[in-house]
Structure formats: C-alpha cells, structure tokens
C-alpha cells in the first residue's frame, strides 16, 4: 500500500477535503442564517398582551371611530366631538356582536338587537346586561396606545 500520494490519490484527497470543507461551511451557513435573522428584532414590536397601538394621531376625525384588534377580540377607539380619545371593548355584552359608534347619537350602538351604550361604556338601553370594558388610552408622540386598565 503506497503511503505517498500518487497523482490520482492526491486529487482524490483534494476532492474529499474540498467537499468536506465546503459542506461543513455551507451547512454552518445554513444553521447560522436563521439565527442571524432571528436576532434582528421584527418591525412589529411585542408590547405584550396588555397593550397595543390602536392608531396614529390624525387617523381619526372628531366624532369618528375605528375598530382595532386588542388581544383576540375587537375593540373600539372613539374620538369624541371634543377631541378626546376613548377606547372600549367592541364586543356587545348581550350576544357578542361587534358594536359601532353612532356619531349622530354620540353613543355606541349594537345593530343586532338595538342595544345602546354611552361613551363610558355603560349600557343605557336595550338588551345588553352589562357595560362594555373600558380601556386606558395614552398618546405618545404620534401613536395612540391602548392598554388594559391597571388597578391603582
């Protein structure tokens, strides 16, 4: 058995080394690629389940409203005629339909069975048995943050 490399053995050795080296390098890259991408923070920042950016300043006009997603349920962001923001759960406490804001009445209305709530969430007329949950609104910069109310 020859111990010094004959030309074919030599090229064969080089081939194996190249394949192995290249394979190792490529496989490392294929492992590192997801890790590098993972380390870069996503654009949508995780604020936790208790807070969400509902809208940007300027999205709503006075006496206007918008439905946004809060956790797994819809919520309602209202800008009153005076320019104040209110955020409430948009799930009607009667049978769970999604409520809407009535600019003509300055009240929140559920189209399913004609239930009404005032802007503080209190059920004022119709079938709804309980008020809507009210959330806290904070405006920071040009973003409107809505978070669950914390006990003080």
């Amino acid at each position, binding site marked *: 058995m020859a111990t010094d490399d004959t030309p074919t053995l030599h090229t064969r050795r080089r081939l194996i080394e190249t394949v192995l080296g290249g394979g190792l390098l490529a496989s490392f890259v294929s492992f590192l690629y*997801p890790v590098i991408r993972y*380390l870069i923070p*996503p654009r949508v920042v*995780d604020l*936790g*389940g208790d807070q969400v950016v509902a809208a940007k300043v300027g999205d709503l006009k006075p006496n206007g409203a918008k439905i946004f997603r809060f956790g797994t349920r819809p919520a309602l962001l209202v800008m009153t005629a005076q320019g104040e923001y209110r955020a409430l759960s948009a799930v009607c406490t009667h049978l769970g339909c999604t409520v809407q804001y009535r600019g003509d009445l300055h009240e929140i209305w559920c189209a399913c069975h004609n239930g009404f709530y005032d802007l503080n969430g209190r059920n004022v007329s119709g079938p709804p048995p309980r008020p809507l949950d009210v959330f806290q609104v904070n405006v920071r910069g040009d973003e409107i943050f809505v978070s669950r109310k914390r006990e003080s």
Partner: protein
Amino acid sequence: MAGLARAREWLDERFHWAELIAPLKKKTVPRHKLSPWYFLGGITLFFFMIQLCTGILLLLYYRPGANEAFESVQYIMTRVQFGWLIRSIHSWSANLMILAAFAHMFSVLFLRAYRKPRELTWVSGMLLLFLALGFGFSGYLLPWNTLAFFATKVGTQITGQVPVVGHPLMVFLRGGEDVTGATLTRFFGFHVAVLPGITAILILVHLALVQYFGMSVPPGVEARWKEHPEEARGTKFFPNFFLRELMAWYIALGVLGTLAAIWPWELGTKADPFGFAPAGIRPEWYFMFMFQTLKEIPAKLWFMDGEVVGILVFGAAGAVWLLLPFFDPVAKGRGRKFVMGAGVFALAYILAMTVYGYLAK
C-alpha cells in the same frame, strides 16, 4: 494551513500548547463490536448544547409572567424571523436529549461500565439524568398554555403527597399553595439559572471522570483482550473518533431539523387558572410510566394511601438506581445478576407502562 501552524506556535510559546494537548493526541477509544454505544453520551451532550444555544436565543424574546408568557411565545412563533424554528428545535431537542440520556444510561448499565473504578461517573450521570427531567418539567410550564398548566398542577400535587416533606416541597415548587404566576416565575428561575448552573458543574465533573478513567470496555471483551493482548484495538480520538462523533451529531441535527420543520411544536391555548381541566391531561412521555403506575395503584393499600405507596416505591427505586454500582462493584455473581435483572425489568416496565399510558385513554 500555515496560519494554523503559526497560531499553534503562538499558543505553545505561552501555554506549552503542544505539551497540553499531547495526551489528547494519544487518547484512544477501544474498538470492538459494541463500540457504537459509546456515541450516546456525546449525543446527549450535543442535544444539551443545542438546548443551551436555542434557550439563550429564546431568552431574547420570552417574557416570564402569567399575563405575558403565552403572548411572548406566540410572538416568537409568528413574528420573529425563524422564531418558529428556534422554538420547535428547543422543544424537540429537549425530548431527544432525555431519550438519549435514558438510552445512554441503559447502555452503560447493560455494558456494565458502572463497575469499579467508575462508580462516581455513574452517580454523576444519574444526577444529570434527574436534572434533565427537572429541566423538562420546569421548561414545560413556560409557554403557560392549558396543557402545561394542568400537567404542572398534577405533577406538583403528586410531589405534595410525599410523607413529611411533601407539602413544604410542593409549596416550595409552586411558590405558594396553588399553581399561579408565581409558579411560572419560579420555574423560569429554576430553568434558566439554577438548573443550568448545577448541570454545567456536573457535566464538567462527569466529563473529567470519563477523561480520567478512559472508556470502559465490556467485561467479556476485557477478559478476552487480557488473554490475547494482540487483539486489543483502539481508535485514535483525534481525529478518527472525533470525526465519527461529528457524523453522529450531524445525523442528530438532521433529525432535529426535520422534526422541527414538519412537526412544529404547537402553541396550545392560554392557561386559565379558573378554567376546567381539559379531558386527557397527560404529562410528557418521560413521566408517563410513573403517572400511569400511580393511576393503576388502588386507592388504599393496607393502611396507607395508594398514591403515597407508589411515590415511596419510586423514590426507593430512584435511590437504588443512583447507587447501583455499589450493588455490583465487580460485575460478577449475585451482584451482577441483581443489577442485570433490575435493568431488564426497569427497561421493560418503563417501555410497557409508557405505551400503556398512551393507549389506555
């Protein structure tokens, strides 16, 4: 290549590098029909290192705390680039690590590598196995989903049944009387700080002992090689055995990636402490045999509570297992029969009870 040589020179001038690694260069691994079993320890270590890496990556986004944990895992699974991959690898590798650890333990047992002088290697290894189970139990709760919540509730409640120390132990584990957000915080502390710290030290001890004593050769092969020394074979650790080990690790990596991509770990639903326990709560598979055993024991045995008897029996079995080498120091005669018999019985029992636990629903 020239660069490597210069690096070696640099190290040698300062640390006597060549002297340091000389023993490693000479290290050999015995080579016989049962040699492939030697890979299991390394594979277990490999999975542990994967856990370390993916665990640290998960730490960058995970938030402990009952109102944030589930959402942060959901965020990792849906929004973070390749978050689904890191998390699924972490969950699968945990299971594979424990599987490999059990396989490693049983192979050491049946190859009788626990015998003198390697008793402490066995003890440190068993402690590592218990730590691995602790990792599994504490990590399982961290996503704070319904299954994990109730599995933890049942598991810690069983711990509470241990006589005398059970209740204080349960309160210590739970951070209170019930499983709450405090339990989650506590388990998180165990999982990322306490257990890794202890495990790191024990791994170093275990590896140092393995290095010191070298690889054990099964008694039959050892006897033969004593008679015919020319038949003794060994493989150089560097690079031969190491390259083979690398192959095993790459295969393990391929299996892990496939599992994580095709069967991603599910998120479940967020835990509701006031909700009803869903039907068919089970612990993870590595606890199944104990769980099923406790279910099969009748409620009362003589004057004692059936569950307590079961727990005590398992506690005693664990103690015996930890000190197994001392029952059979030289792997001969009655001692050997006892350990072999116990090993076969344990393996059969664990397999049977695990399968039964899944079928009997």
